[in-house]
């Protein structure tokens, strides 16, 4: 499986600011996704990061709040914009190798606290 890294691993941010989270994979992957895991809860899909085009967002998530980039097959960023305390969560990137499903592997996550 791929080695996935995320930066930063954690951060504490002030309300109203923005934070960009990076996800780097050590090999080319077909699919990249971003998830949110609120404290003590399960994971929720935010969006699919599409290479060279706009991300595909799930219901309840919008591009203005969570802009995503994916310039190539090994890298993606998620920005959490105009943060509020409700955005305090773990943000995780995952990768997959095929379009027809198959395993998805997760990065270590970025733990975000908004004050």
């Amino acid at each position: 499986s791929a080695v996935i890294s995320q930066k930063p691993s954690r951060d504490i941010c002030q309300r109203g600011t923005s934070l960009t989270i990076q996800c780097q994979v050590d090999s080319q992957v077909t699919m990249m996704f971003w998830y949110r895991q609120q404290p003590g809860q399960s994971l929720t899909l935010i969006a699919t990061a599409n290479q060279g085009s706009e991300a595909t967002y799930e219901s309840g998530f919008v591009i203005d709040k969570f802009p995503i980039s994916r310039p190539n097959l090994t890298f993606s960023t998620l920005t959490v914009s105009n943060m509020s305390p409700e955005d305090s969560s773990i943000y995780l990137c995952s990768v997959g190798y095929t379009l027809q499903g198959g395993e998805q592997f997760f990065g270590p996550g970025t733990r975000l606290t908004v004050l």
Partner: protein
Amino acid sequence: GESVGLHLPTLSVQEGDNSIINCAYSNSASDYFIWYKQESGKGPQFIIDIRSNMDKRQGQRVTVLLNKTVKHLSLQIAATQPGDSAVYFCAEKGAGGGADGLTFGKGTHLIIQP
């Protein structure tokens, strides 16, 4: 997907015993399922997967059972060890094809008692 509560169900098992973790999934059209293990402070770790054309799949010390009739998935862990203590999530992928992400279940906190 399923709603998520603030408190995870907890399963406590004696070391060496077998454990069974259950999951009810929501979409009858889902065609692919994965079990993940998440330790504190880490991302989910892939354990085992199963496609909807199967009802059982075995790995090392783990077995996944799929009952499509009642939309139920289970993970059996044999001869549990202290390192098995973690939160376990089931996840499903829809049958729409393409690049769908996963819908996760609530999670179960497995505690291995010495």
